[in-house]
């Protein structure tokens, strides 16, 4: 069976003055039909590059030296511009992080939702009815009236619902969610997560859910990919990865998650050190400079060490205690 979304050995470089910046290196992610896969990592781990690569909307200085992205068995990386435009919004669509800036401020909600249906048959009234239905589905009160509203007239939570409605409008096969709850407070976060689950059940799409928030990932996803500095370091079923992390980076990430702290502390724990220079990444393991377990062997490429069925960590010393 083909996966809804399959990313194989994706590598993305940016041409910069200091040389090629290796934003993504050999990233492979599979999102099976109807499943939710989470991608977790700190800022700078390559999340936005991943999304832009999926949509083939990378900036002009980006190159793709290796890798392939397939959507329902169809090659996205080599698709024509015309075909790509058809895919975007119809077969895969995105819920962006900040609904304040990702909705056009000078166009009404209805106009923006009508515009993304430009390929669909039907006149303006029919398209507006479809938009209003979807707005109602995502829990927006007075959906017909909201069509004439402008983004700034809505609250943050409502705007995020609009963004979800827009993404779900064309019933895509794959939904990419780019930190859709980061800009919201905790109560709203729960509501949005529930909404995403409902939408997913209803239109039966697969979701690639990108977040730095471990709690949300654990709540929503079936599988999770942990990324660090443009490399996928661990992958497995959500519970397995969070309960028995194999990669030292994942272990640190979970230790430092503010959500699991029981008491308030003055300083949030953090991982010492900083991200490696991606124009000149270290040979071997990408995490070695900040890793407590690092030894000489870490200067060689780490193997995908199996942890449990369907769960691996790219580390020479993986496991709860190291080896």
């Amino acid at each position, binding site marked *: 069976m083909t996966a809804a979304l399959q990313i194989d050995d994706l590598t993305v470089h940016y041409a910069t003055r200091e040389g090629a910046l290796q934003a993504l290196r050999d990233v492979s992610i599979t999102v099976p039909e109807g499943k939710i896969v989470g991608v977790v990592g700190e800022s700078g781990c390559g999340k936005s590059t991943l999304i832009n690569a999926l949509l083939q909307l990378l900036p002009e200085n980006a190159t793709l030296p290796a890798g392939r992205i397939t959507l329902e068995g169809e090659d996205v990386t080599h698709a024509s511009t015309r075909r790509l435009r058809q895919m*975007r919004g119809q077969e895969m*669509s995105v819920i962006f992080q900040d609904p304040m*800036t990702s909705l056009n401020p000078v166009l009404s909600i209805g106009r923006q939702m009508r515009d993304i249906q430009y390929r669909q048959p039907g006149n303006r009234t029919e398209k507006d009815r479809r938009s209003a239905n979807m707005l109602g589905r995502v829990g927006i009160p007075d959906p017909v009236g909201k069509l004439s509203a402008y983004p700034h007239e809505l609250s943050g939570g409502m705007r995020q619902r609009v963004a979800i409605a827009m993404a779900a409008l064309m019933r895509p096969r794959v939904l990419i969610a780019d930190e859709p709850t980061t800009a919201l407070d905790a109560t709203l976060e729960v509501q949005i997560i529930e909404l995403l689950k409902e939408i997913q059940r209803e239109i039966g799409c697969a979701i690639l859910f990108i977040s730095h928030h471990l709690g949300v990932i654990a709540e929503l996803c079936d599988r999770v990919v942990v990324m660090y500095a443009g490399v996928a370091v661990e992958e497995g079923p959500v519970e397995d990865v969070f309960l028995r992390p194999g990669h030292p980076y994942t272990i640190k990430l979970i230790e430092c998650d503010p959500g699991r702290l029981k008491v308030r502390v003055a300083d949030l724990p953090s991982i010492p050190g900083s991200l490696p220079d991606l124009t000149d990444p270290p040979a071997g393991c990408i995490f070695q400079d900040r890793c407590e377990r690092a030894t000489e062997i870490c200067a060689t490429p780490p193997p995908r060490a199996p942890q449990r069925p369907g769960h691996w960590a790219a580390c020479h010393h993986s496991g709860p205690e190291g080896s």
Partner: protein
Amino acid sequence: MLRYTFQRIVLALAIVFFAISALYTVMITLPGDPTTVLLGPRATAEIRADFRERMGLDNPVYVQIAQFWGRILTGDMGTDFNRNRPVAEAVLNALPHTMALVFGAIFWSATLGILLGAFSADNRGSWLDRISGVLSVAFIAAPSFVVALYSLLVFSVWLRWFPTIGAGEPGDIMSRLYHLALPSFAIGLAWVGYVARIVRASMLEALGENYIRTARAFGLPRRTVIYNYALRVAILPAVQVLGVGIGGMLSSAVFAEIVFSRPGLGSLIYDSVSGRNYPVVMGSMLVAIGFFVTCALIADLINAALDPRHRSKA
């Protein structure tokens, strides 16, 4: 929005009031006999004495200014002593011609400037973009009266494509437009440059915004994204600039009216200066400033109305 509109209107009125009062003060306090200034050199001694009495020229300056505004508000702007008609009549006859000229210039600069700017932003970095960038600066730099003179020479005198004199037959729209085309283009050329630059810059800024990425992520056609989503936001600053630019266009209009021998505020003032026809100078100045301030105010309000973010804020 209502409060904002009200504030802007009060400010605009205050500016017109102070600008004109200052000029009037200079006029009546200048050394020399103010009756000569206000009646013209040919007035007899009795007329002067009578006028001095009637206008209260022996009163303190602030009383005179109050009286001056009192007369203006009743529609009395003095007498054009060269042609012996009310100044209000002369000025109101001239104003529509100048307005046509200015709005013609705005038409040129808005259409050509927005096209040029949007095209440059769309083809950023291409040699066409570079040429249009250099041209924009050259348009801005070239003095509008030299542009007017050269276009008169080339298009009217040599090529005979356009008429050299006048504003066209009254009542004949086509003739009016035909006479308007060249002078308004000469005034508008500099603003084509300004508008093109501003539209290009704000469009590049808009193209970097998240909502443009959203539009592209939803597969909207490139043309829709650039010319509808980005341009709609990018036009806003151009509206503002054109509104403020009307002051400059009024200055250019003086030259265009003289070079193309058109009636209008500019040629009215020009003719009055040589004859020391002060009431006409004062009246034209009042109308010119009033027109400019009104236009800047309208541009401001249009901008606020076009930008829904602005609409509910104030």
